[in-house]
């Protein structure tokens, strides 16, 4: 059967982070695009955050609200279900991606639709909904500009907020010219790489899909438990189209997205736009509470998705990752992300949040996922910008420990031997002193020569780009002894 939507790229072919990163680093065009984009947005975030005198208190409040939700998640979810049901929403519970995908496809089939329009949503990327629907003969059209670029480009998203951040405008022009006509209204001819012309092409291409579609699929930024209100924040107005024109709206929402009250929402609506796009206020904030007769979708569904979230919740040292509101500030500030881009992380969740969320949602079963907590220098820049104060570096180190336990459970590894050796050396000053006899000897042999490139395993990875001074013939320990005969004075 012929495909209805562009065939996307595949996460499956992407190797482990260090190898994937090496390949990305060689893409000079992408590195330029990323450096430009992240540098711009970082600067905007700093300005916007500094305008709010109570910024640090807001961050603390947000972290505390999210932690309270996590502590009483069952209660808030049941409350949300009750309020939504009372307002005319059909609530579904999905244990995993397969459950959620089936629920969405079944609704579409029951409605007799063979295409849906989509609002940008991380959770439907996480469960790969589009490909499931495609296999069921249902075309899912992305309507966010960047998601459209990714979809038409047979590509994969590389950023949470700006999934096409790795593309520049001349690449976008080529994609629009080449692909739009195959899946609907072609791009106007001629078309330049002026952002206004590209946006107009997207607007025209999408307009016919908005007007034609009978069903929309969204995610959800927040669900307010006591009123059953769903909240979506977006910047382009495409969300408004999806939320108002089609008759049926299905929202797939992670179970951690619930907030107790509308008052709590205020905190997040202040933090999210400033952290994410560097704007004071979010351009399009849609809030709806159930069905309003004669206005907007008359058939509302909410799919509450677990898909590993309860596993994250079960780990007291990792669960702060569930505070995440998908703002992308950690990606934009991350020096590793800036150089490597999103694809190397092997999932729709890249950057620091991907490195702590991916391994927790998916488990430590495969080597690619186990490599993610190590894809960080632990510089801590993400800790400082996170609007919900996720302690990224603590969780990264915690997950490294879990990855090591997983790796060494079956058989010992070379790294484990090295670390056991280091553990012995550092257990006592006498052990360190005896090892220092060796470094001093090496220092005498090398006589102050610095070490250049050489084919020693592991060391070569360091020496390929850096010279190292030869070890000194006298350690500090020895110097102290010589200066102060008889040890500590």
């Amino acid at each position, binding site marked *: 059967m012929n495909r209805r939507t562009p065939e996307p790229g595949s996460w499956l072919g992407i190797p482990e982070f260090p190898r994937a990163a090496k390949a990305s680093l060689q893409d000079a065009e992408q590195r330029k695009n990323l450096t430009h984009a992240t540098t711009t947005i970082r600067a905007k975030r700093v300005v916007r955050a500094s305008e709010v005198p109570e910024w640090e208190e807001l961050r603390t409040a947000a972290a505390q609200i999210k932690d309270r939700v996590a502590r009483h998640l069952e209660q808030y979810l049941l409350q949300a279900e009750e309020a939504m049901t009372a307002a005319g929403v059909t609530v579904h519970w999905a244990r995993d991606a397969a459950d959620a995908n089936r629920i969405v496809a079944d609704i579409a089939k029951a409605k007799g639709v063979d295409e849906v329009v989509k609002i940008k949503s991380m959770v439907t990327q996480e469960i790969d909904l589009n490909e499931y629907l495609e296999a069921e003969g249902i075309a899912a059209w992305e309507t966010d500009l960047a998601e459209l670029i990714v979809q038409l480009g047979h590509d994969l998203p590389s950023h949470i907020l700006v999934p096409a951040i790795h593309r520049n405008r001349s690449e976008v022009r080529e994609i629009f010219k080449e692909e739009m006509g195959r899946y609907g209204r072609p791009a106007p001819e001629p078309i330049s790489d002026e952002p206004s012309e590209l946006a107009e092409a997207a607007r025209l291409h999408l307009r016919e899909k908005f007007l034609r579609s009978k069903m929309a699929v969204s995610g959800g930024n927040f669900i307010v438990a006591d009123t059953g209100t769903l909240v979506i924040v977006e910047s382009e107005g495409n969300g408004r189209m999806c939320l108002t024109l089609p008759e049926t709206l299905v929202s797939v929402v992670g179970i951690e997205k619930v907030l107790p009250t509308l008052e709590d929402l205020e905190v997040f609506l202040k933090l999210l736009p400033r952290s994410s796009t560097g704007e004071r206020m979010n351009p399009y904030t849609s809030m709806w509470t159930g069905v309003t007769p004669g206005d907007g979708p008359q058939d509302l569904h909410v799919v509450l998705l677990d898909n590993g979230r309860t596993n994250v919740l079960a780990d007291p040292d990792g669960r702060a990752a569930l505070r995440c509101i998908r703002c992308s500030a950690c990606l934009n500030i991350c020096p590793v992300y800036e150089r490597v881009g999103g694809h190397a992380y092997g999932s729709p969740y890249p950057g620091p949040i991907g490195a702590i969320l991916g391994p927790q949602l998916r488990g430590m079963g495969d080597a690619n996922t186990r490599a993610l907590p190590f894809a960080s220098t632990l510089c801590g820049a993400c800790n*400082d910008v996170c609007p919900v104060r996720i302690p990224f570096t603590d969780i990264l180190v915690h997950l490294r420990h879990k*990855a090591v336990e997983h790796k060494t459970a079956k058989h010992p590894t070379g790294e484990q031997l090295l670390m056991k050796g280091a553990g012995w050396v550092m257990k006592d000053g006498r052990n360190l002193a005896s090892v220092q006899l060796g470094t001093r000897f090496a220092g005498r042999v090398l006589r102050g020569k610095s070490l250049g490139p050489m084919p020693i395993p592991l060391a070569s990875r360091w020496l390929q780009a850096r010279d190292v001074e030869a070890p000194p013939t006298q350690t500090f320990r020895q110097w102290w002894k010589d200066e102060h005969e008889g040890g500590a004075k």
Partner: protein
Amino acid sequence: MNASPHVALFATCITDTMKPSVPIATVKLLERLGCRVSYPERQTCCGQIMTNTGYWDEAVPTVRNYVRSFEDYDYIVAPSGSCVGSVREQHPMLARHAGDAGLERDATAAASRTYELSEFLVDVLGVTDVGAYFPHRVTYHPPCHSVRIAKVGDRPLRLLREVRGIDLIDLPKAEECCGFGGTFSVKNPDVSIAMASDKARHVRTTGAEYLVAGDHACLMNIGGVLHRGRSGVKTIHLAEILAATEEDAR
């Protein structure tokens, strides 16, 4: 504070073994400022290399050793924000991992007595002018762990600004990590090199003779790239500049 505080130097394994001029400068500086300095020989390492690589069981003995090495001292001073950060943030966590409440209590207490060098000078000794003389063009890299974990703030810069003869130049993108990251530099060598090369490039644009930082590990990383590129820029630890006097220059 009494007139001559008794300080235990935590030399840190890396400078003790690879760069003794750093702890030697620290001793000279502290003694010049009137401190009595001891070096408990039992000491080794903060354990960070094991902890951050995921080998927590192997790191626990270093916590025990740290606590015992420094139990008799009110002030423990280290010329490294990274090692101090590890002592403060990771030692209590490792003690909890070991299920040892007594060790957690002792590690927390030892951490509260542990100071990064610039913190000790500014906060405890109350000095920013340490009487140093260093007539060179210098740029300062703020190590990530000293800024974001140990939170030394701008203390190193306040100390450097008081150094006589110094020509201090701002480093572009100073707050960005140099890409060392301990075993990160071996596990993700290509990303690490890309970051170190960018940092070295920023250093070269300053025209500085010396790159200074409060952590030897960053200096080793950036300095390694600078040396390979024959840039002529030398690296120097904060303690070495602060210890330098006019007599040394003669």
